[in-house]
């Protein structure tokens, strides 16, 4: 038996008897530093205060509470637990916990109840040995340095090649973090050809999809589900690929299968709600969104989009039939929560009001609906934050539905200015309007931008800059054009750009300061902004 007297332990279980019994086992092992928590929420707070070497967490913590898997996710994502620490998931029945767990965050081991002191000591001893063996890798992970992780893996494999399989996952994660796509693809394919595991399938599917190989990704996920039909994470991946390829019906069916396997998953339920809503399956959408809202209460993945989605699904479900009292109460509740909780998010405030107005109009209260709509439109005019393209289109559709054609057109016009260079967005805009002054508003600027990109790539910087400037003059809120202009300016300006260049750079970036942080270009915007401000 190893010496544990200097180690700190945290026992988390909702049963007092169980906590007491495990604590006394640990005492018998000579361990003094033992804390207990009766809920995962408390455990998270305790881990923020103190670094624990060992966490023994029961999986089921009672209804309405975070389960062990959610706590593990929180601890890892918020870095409240070191990779060197040992997290043991205690379960009465592990197969269920495996299904309910996420592939990204696995505990160091499952410990099945009942266990005795000997069994506990044996597990702990072995896990400590394993972590000692892997120590250089784990320390590199704690420092967040993927190249060092790879190096540490190499060293371990040189030292004893028999332990190479223990490094597979760390290597794959590090390659992914370093965007070494080709290496990662080769590596994962080799793993799958030898000994397939669910995580390797999921990682390869994700990589192929990210690199635009949707058909291949689909094939991998289908193969994976055939081999591991009980792993819901694989269904999530397949559904994502299907939805992106336009197979939204099948995507919904696949997610419904995943939800049947593992209903406790906020993001999965929300994704299902969204798909079902798009598929006009309002029953399924309201069911999934309702789950997402209620499970979101104790999850870090809580998202107001589920509240809005639920209200929308309920309204559309009853389209043409008014709204019964119970549904009205539910809609008020979920929208009220958004209005109360996200007071600073103007976009959410506007959308919650518009959805509520739609509900009221449907329930027959045209007067209040009109008032609410007016209030929402007034807020809309003062908004500095941009809607994402998807949201803008949803809001425009809502306004049209509420009989506010001109406000709807204004949103569409704005959307074309901000996102007009994206053909997919333009296709969706065309579904809502056939007004040529909206649809064609961005054409010239987008064309100039395209020419600018070509010149920039050919190294003709000043020509590129001139083209970008002309494009920006027409569509100052277009994110792509503004970012291209700023980048060209900084490039032309060289090492220490003159003040006038920086000034121009800041001006064009400030016009697109409303870029949503969910936008894939947000990171690029942020970096340009830092350079323009600090140079």
């Amino acid at each position, binding site marked *: 038996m190893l010496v544990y007297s200097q180690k700190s332990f945290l026992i988390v279980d909702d049963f007092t*008897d169980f906590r007491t019994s495990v604590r006394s086992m640990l005492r018998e092992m000579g361990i003094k530093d033992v804390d207990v928590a009766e809920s995962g929420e408390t455990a998270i707070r305790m881990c923020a205060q103190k670094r624990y070497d060992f966490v023994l967490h029961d999986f089921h913590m009672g209804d309405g509470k975070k389960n062990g898997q959610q706590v593990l996710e929180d601890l890892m994502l918020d870095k409240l637990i070191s990779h060197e620490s040992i997290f043991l998931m205690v379960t009465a029945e592990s197969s269920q916990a495996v299904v309910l767990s996420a592939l990204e965050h696995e505990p160091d081991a*499952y410990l099945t109840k009942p266990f005795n002191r*000997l069994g506990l000591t044996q597990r702990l001893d072995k896990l400590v040995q394993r972590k000692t063996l892997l120590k250089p890798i784990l320390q590199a992970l704690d420092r967040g340095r993927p190249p060092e992780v790879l190096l540490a893996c190499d060293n371990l494999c040189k030292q004893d090649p*028999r332990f190479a399989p223990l490094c597979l996952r760390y290597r794959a994660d590090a390659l992914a973090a370093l965007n070494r796509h080709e290496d990662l693809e080769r590596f994962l394919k080799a793993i799958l050809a030898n000994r397939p595991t669910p995580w390797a399938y999921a990682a390869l599917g994700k990589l192929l999809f990210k690199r635009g190989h949707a058909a291949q990704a689909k094939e991998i996920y289908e193969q994976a589900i055939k081999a591991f039909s009980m792993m819901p994470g694989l269904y999530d991946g397949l559904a994502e690929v299907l939805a992106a390829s336009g197979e939204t019906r099948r995507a919904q069916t696949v997610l419904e299968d995943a939800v049947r396997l593992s209903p406790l998953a906020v993001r999965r339920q929300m994704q299902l709600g969204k798909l079902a809503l798009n598929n006009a399956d309002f029953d399924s959408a309201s*069911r999934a969104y309702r789950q997402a809202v209620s499970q979101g209460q104790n999850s870090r993945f809580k998202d107001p989009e589920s509240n809005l989605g639920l209200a929308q699904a309920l309204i559309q479900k009853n389209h043409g039939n008014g709204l019964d009292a119970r549904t009205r109460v539910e809609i008020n509740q979920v929208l009220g929560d958004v209005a109360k909780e996200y007071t600073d998010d103007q976009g959410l405030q506007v959308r919650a009001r518009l959805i509520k107005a739609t509900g009221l109009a449907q329930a027959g209260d045209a007067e209040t609906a009109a008032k609410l709509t007016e209030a929402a439109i007034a807020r809309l005019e003062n908004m500095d934050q941009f809607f994402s393209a998807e949201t803008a289109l949803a809001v425009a559709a809502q306004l049209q539905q509420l009989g506010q054609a001109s406000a709807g057109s204004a949103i569409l016009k704005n959307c074309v200015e901000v996102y007009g260079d994206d053909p997919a967005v333009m296709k969706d805009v065309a579904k809502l309007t056939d007004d040529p002054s909206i649809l064609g508003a961005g054409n010239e600027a987008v064309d100039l931008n395209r020419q600018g990109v070509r010149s920039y790539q050919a190294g003709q910087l000043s020509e590129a800059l001139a083209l970008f400037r002309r494009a920006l003059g027409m569509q100052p809120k277009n994110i792509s054009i503004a970012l291209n202009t700023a980048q060209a300016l900084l490039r032309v300006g060289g090492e220490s750009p003159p003040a006038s260049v920086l000034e121009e750079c800041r001006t064009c970036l400030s016009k697109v300061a409303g870029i949503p942080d969910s936008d894939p270009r947000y990171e690029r915007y942020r970096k340009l902004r830092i350079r323009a401000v600090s140079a």
Partner: protein
Amino acid sequence: MNDESQGLTFSTVIASTVHDMKNSLAMLMQAHSQWLARLPAGQAQGAEQAVIEHEFAHLNGMLVQLLGLYKLDVNQLPMCPGYHELDDFVEAQLAAHQQTLDSREITTRYQIDALNPLGFFDRELVGSVISNVINNAIRYAGHAMLITVSEEGEQVLMSINDDGPGYPQAMIDRQADYVQGINPHTGSTGLGLYFASRIAALHERNGVRGRIEISNGGALGGGLFTLYLP
């Protein structure tokens, strides 16, 4: 539309009942061991004590098996293989049974002849099989039990051997039948082997499926159970 009733399938009923039963059993076992710890040394050991511990483990094994068989039947048994250290795996199995082995005065030894320290299998599922076999061996063994892990090509073999009377000849002769179904005359022993062979078969590599084999003999001369993992 009632969301609650929709999710309540028989599978959920079984799963949650077994879950509760296991929790309850875990409490019982823990309370029992705490109570034992307070007893004077002379009273803490006795024939009844061995029976209690063995039957606790037996009950627990049956609950796991019950749930496993049900899930196999409805294709809901999750299979999640990974690399596991073989010595760790065997030690964990033995640690869980150590008290019973001690009180029955069964000397246990394990031997790892595999060059590779890691095996590739579903730890929970194979663990429940090995645990049931150990339990069975405890029931029939005289004084000794031997667990060996070895390699045959790329396959890992896990064997449990005891010095008891061994498996009845009829059972050895008809062992292939247990894979196809349960013989109503063989009772629970057949069920355990059936469960084991199903779990073994879930492990597959390049068209080769895992399997089990029972015979008599081995180093200790009694029952010999072997699990082949491809």
